[in-house]
């Protein structure tokens, strides 16, 4: 049973997470804003003119959901992993262990902290995308299924924030942390259909992509905004929720086993 005390201590950790990324707003919000604007400008507008997808969806409209979700996932992951890693450096990570915060409170506070930052960046990306879209097509991109959009953005943001927590607790050096990011996450995000549809891929890669959970998360958002997707709604929902439960379980195990000591 959830007690009032648990909610209070969880709220304080969540509040601390918000304050933390708010204090370095250039790094946490403005940098991703510039990055996504550049992506929209280069891929969506300049190169996008020469890319023709099946159906009548312009390429700019196609990549907006992908970039929104990429912003959400990257930032959710970054937020929780840097929070834990900086705690390992400064030594204040042990506060989470010695105070009455429980494992579930820690996971949910960091997950929501990451999701919040992800939503801000995703929202800004969507806003910038709309400006570009309006300039070219003289109209705004309408959201076809807002509920699906909300569901996939939330479940994706939470999953990636929890994953950031797992990796940061697991990592014993900066090398290990950046290795996970460079060799696993970035390829999975880029191969998860941010910039292309499955139809553009060789059949072997198409088959392999089906094992990438990010494909379902990104296409879930695309389904929400455009009403079109490479995967069915049901499979996107099952994989996304399954992925969240999986990373949540790993996070619980990490917190039980991990060291909260200073690096």
């Amino acid at each position: 049973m959830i007690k009032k005390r648990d909610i209070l201590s969880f709220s304080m950790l969540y509040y601390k997470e918000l304050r933390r990324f708010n204090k370095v707003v250039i790094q946490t919000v403005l940098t991703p804003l510039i990055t996504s604007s550049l992506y929209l400008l280069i891929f969506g507008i300049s190169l996008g003119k020469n890319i023709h997808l099946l159906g009548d969806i312009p390429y700019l409209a196609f990549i907006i959901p992908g970039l929104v979700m990429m912003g959400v996932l990257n930032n959710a992951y970054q937020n929780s992993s840097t929070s834990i890693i900086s705690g390992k450096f400064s030594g204040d990570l042990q506060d989470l262990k010695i105070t009455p915060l429980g494992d579930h409170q820690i996971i949910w506070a960091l997950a929501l902290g990451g999701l919040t930052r992800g939503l801000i960046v995703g929202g800004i990306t969507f806003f910038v995308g709309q400006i570009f879209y309006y300039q070219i097509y003289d109209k705004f991109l309408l959201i076809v299924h807002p509920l699906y959009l909300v569901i996939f953005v939330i479940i994706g943001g939470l999953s990636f924030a929890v994953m950031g927590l797992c990796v940061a607790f697991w990592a014993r050096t900066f090398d290990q942390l950046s290795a996970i990011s460079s060799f696993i996450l970035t390829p999975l995000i880029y191969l998860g259909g941010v910039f292309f549809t499955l139809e553009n891929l060789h059949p072997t890669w198409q088959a392999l992509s089906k094992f990438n959970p990010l494909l379902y998360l990104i296409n879930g958002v695309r389904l929400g905004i455009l009403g079109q997707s490479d995967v069915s709604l049901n499979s996107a929902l099952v994989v996304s929720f399954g992925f969240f439960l999986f990373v949540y379980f790993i996070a619980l195990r990490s917190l039980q086993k991990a060291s909260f000591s200073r690096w």
Partner: protein
Amino acid sequence: MAPPLKVQNLVKNYNKVQAVKNVSFELQPGEIFGLLGPNGAGKTSIISCIVTLETPNEGLIEVFGHDVTQQAKAAKYKMGFVPQELIHHGFFSAEEILEIHSGYYCIVNNRERIHYLLNELGLWEHKDKKVRQLSGGMKRRLLVAKALVHEPRLLLLDEPTAGVDIELRESLWKFVCELKKEGVSVLLTTHYLEEAEELCQRVGVLSHGRLIKLGETHDLITELTHRRVSFSLKNSLKKIHHELKTEELNNRHIFNIPYTKSIEELFNELSLGLGDVTDLKIQEGSLEDAFRYLLVEDMEENK
């Protein structure tokens, strides 16, 4: 009533190294208990197990009757912990850190307590500074304030005066004594044995992970050390022989006598009266002497 802290048959291993070997002790309500030992003796490992930073391999730890492994939350509300190493908290000010820390203990409006602690620990003027801007001594005081935001009944201090100047040490101990008066029980580890002697009613001495001695500080001193008595004789030609005499320098006779023997007895055995001597000096044994004795004894036993 359950004791503030009960450690029973505690064992802690790091890989193949046994850092804590079957250690047992209890704290009594409102006492300051010193856990002493050289570096690597297992002091921090024991404290880490108490505050749940480490999991014991064997044994039981209870804080006011709450098992720290089974009822960790209940135990955590009752204790405060000041770690040995400084914490930097890059993003936040001193006051913000205390507010956040209060929140972890589910205390929402804790301003009064926070201001009290900031004042008591001399941090009031620095409350708006980022923690990284504080000096080492201020950071140390902030750690003490953090440990006390939730008014714990058990305070664990892991070498709180390491690298701290004399003035701050004195003010810190004064504050700890005030807490003791309020009924807070304190477990402290320190390398400054003079401080431990002055503050602690009881001490436990650790060596290589084992608790080699546990008892009242005063009893340990009287049991394990000698009084050093020295005097000069008015009649400098008089010869004195006694089994406890250790030295004679320029008509100054020096004796090491056990606490079981009174100075009166010594004088009687020497057939001397107070009128026969000048410049009588009595130097009491110290906890440091007792500590050294124990460590040497332990080393010889384990040769």
